[in-house]
């Protein structure tokens, strides 16, 4: 009898086993295709990549004019390798007081961030202004402009300016032709001047001597100097050097202690930004006090960590995720590197309500 009871109970267990096995298979099939966490693709611009070297070599040109050697020396038919340079970097001065920054405008415009920013301008007053400028002067800022640089108070532009009507672009300015390759536009009241070199480089600013010096460097008339941004530093979509006092001002209100130490311990900050996908920012602070720099690096790392905690506490998860990638690398020789990443998703969220996007959305919904 007990055996019969056990036998019937056994079949209940078997039925339960089959039901559970099938139920388990169904449950696991619901859970196995977990959406993969979205990877942030940040390329940190730490050094020249192969693409950067390629870009640089395509830009290198011999100087337009090489000084004639004395009669007792053989004339050299080809310029020496050191004379072949990137004209925009060559036009820059050897040192700056505040900052020298180059923005790869064309690369940035065609990057995901650039497309996103461009969306913000479509249909806005600025967009209309650009269209008017193009119609009037022939200059398509979004396509013709290759790089925009600033060295203290002098602005340098490079690009394809063959179709630009300079007289329309510089109204009220008088043109001079100091050399066959250059045209100098000067305002009559002595304000801004602009120099156009071979329809490839424009140097503009209020200090005419700086502009003339840039022309001399481009034409090979001035002695060769190491430009403030070396060619090997021309990587990323934005690069340059900034005086540490300028960087320190960023901390003026929040962390005055950090501001003071940054000013005393470091001389300058080299900046590189990669915007090929998510935005990677690398800042190298250089100084000559190894112990102080290490201490400052620790403080900066702490400040970034505290900022992240504060963002988490305020529910700003996007900002906290952005600071997840922030780090400081001390070198031990008086310099340190700060790395930051700006995920595209974060930028997208910040720009979702910009004027151009709103207009586009309204336009799209009304057309629907």
């Amino acid at each position: 009898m007990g055996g019969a009871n056990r036998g019937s109970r056994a079949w209940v267990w078997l039925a339960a086993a089959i039901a559970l096995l099938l139920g388990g298979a169904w449950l696991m099939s619901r859970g196995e295709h977990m959406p993969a966490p979205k990877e942030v693709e940040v390329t940190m611009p730490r050094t020249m990549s192969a693409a950067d070297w390629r870009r640089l070599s395509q830009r290198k040109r011999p100087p337009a004019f090489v000084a004639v050697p004395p009669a007792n020396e053989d004339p050299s038919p080809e310029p020496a390798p050191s004379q072949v340079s990137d004209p925009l970097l060559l036009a820059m001065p050897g040192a700056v007081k505040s900052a020298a920054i180059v923005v790869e405008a064309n690369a940035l415009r065609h990057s995901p961030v650039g497309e996103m920013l461009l969306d913000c301008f479509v249909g806005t007053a600025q967009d209309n202004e650009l269209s008017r400028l193009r119609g009037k002067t022939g200059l398509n800022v979004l396509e013709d402009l290759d790089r925009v640089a600033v060295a203290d108070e002098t602005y340098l532009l490079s690009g394809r300016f063959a179709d630009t009507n300079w007289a329309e672009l510089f109204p009220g300015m008088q043109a001079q032709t100091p050399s066959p390759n250059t045209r100098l536009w000067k305002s009559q009241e002595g304000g801004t001047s602009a120099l156009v070199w071979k329809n490839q480089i424009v140097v503009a600013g209020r200090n005419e001597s700086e502009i003339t010096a840039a022309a001399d460097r481009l034409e090979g008339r001035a002695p060769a100097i190491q430009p403030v941004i070396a060619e090997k530093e021309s990587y990323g979509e934005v690069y340059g050097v900034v005086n540490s006092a300028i960087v320190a001002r960023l901390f003026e209100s929040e962390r005055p202690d950090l501001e003071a130490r940054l000013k005393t311990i470091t001389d300058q900050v080299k900046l590189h930004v990669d915007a090929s996908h998510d935005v990677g920012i690398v800042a190298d602070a250089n100084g000559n006090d190894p112990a102080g720099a290490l201490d400052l690096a620790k403080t900066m790392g702490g400040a970034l960590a505290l900022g992240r905690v504060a963002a988490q506490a305020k529910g700003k998860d996007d900002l906290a995720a952005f600071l997840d990638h922030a780090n400081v690398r001390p070198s031990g020789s008086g310099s340190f590197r700060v790395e930051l990443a700006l995920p595209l998703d974060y930028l997208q969220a910040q720009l979702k309500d910009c004027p151009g996007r709103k207009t586009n959305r309204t336009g799209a919904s009304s057309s629907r």
Partner: protein
Amino acid sequence: MTVLSIAVDLWRQAFARKWFVVLGAAVTLFLVGIALTLRLDVVDGALAGLRLFGRPTTVRITAVDVALRPIFKAGAIIIFYPFTLFLITLCAEFAPSLLAPGRIEHMLSLPVRRWELVLGTYLGVVGLSALFSLYGAGGLCLILGAKTGVFTLRPVFAAFLGTISFAAVYSAMVAAAVFARSATSSAGVGLALYFAGVLAGYRTSLASMISPGLPRHAFEAVTGLLPRISALGNVASEIAGGQAVSATHVAGLLAGFLAFAGAVLAGAVWGFERKDF
């Protein structure tokens, strides 16, 4: 209550064996080693320096919890894979010894139901696994928390998932012991299910490599029933590493693992009920 007494009895037996003492001592030594040799320099919540055995190691100065993520991830993977494999071989003998001639007759003469015997043995071993993995993960969290000021339970949760994974494997080991009464076959079935479960976690991508038709359908049908061990392992590693995971998917996987373990145990009880001793 009877189930609990059987589980406690099993624990008594386990701690009488030197291997479990060795395992406990190894985990403790690892934790003490970490506590004594690792020096962390934390500035305002950022890990600014690290010394292991007194030797300074260059680190990227970053938020402590971000810096500790790889360590917690590695811990979760160790618990999920090598530690589970070790437990499979270590615990293979428990269920067959329960059914050993002489002992089983004695047990059945007591007022204990057969399903209680199976469940008590099973829960005893799964409890041991939970004890060691939670001890390791919890100890690591406490030590690193005390050194950095950042406490997190994520690695403990990852260790809990490791225990669930072992629970599914061990259910098959108990069933194998009921049908074959051998520690070798119990360990063999456990290892086979473990590796099959690792493959089952990648069944979708593996199925695409199998020629369409009957072979692929057969592969999908068989692996569809198995616990997705590697899928749960990836979840455990992501949780320990501070990544966000879908709670619905994790709940589905966990419920599936528990249902699988329940199904195999029910099968074991079915086999046990049909046996005459």
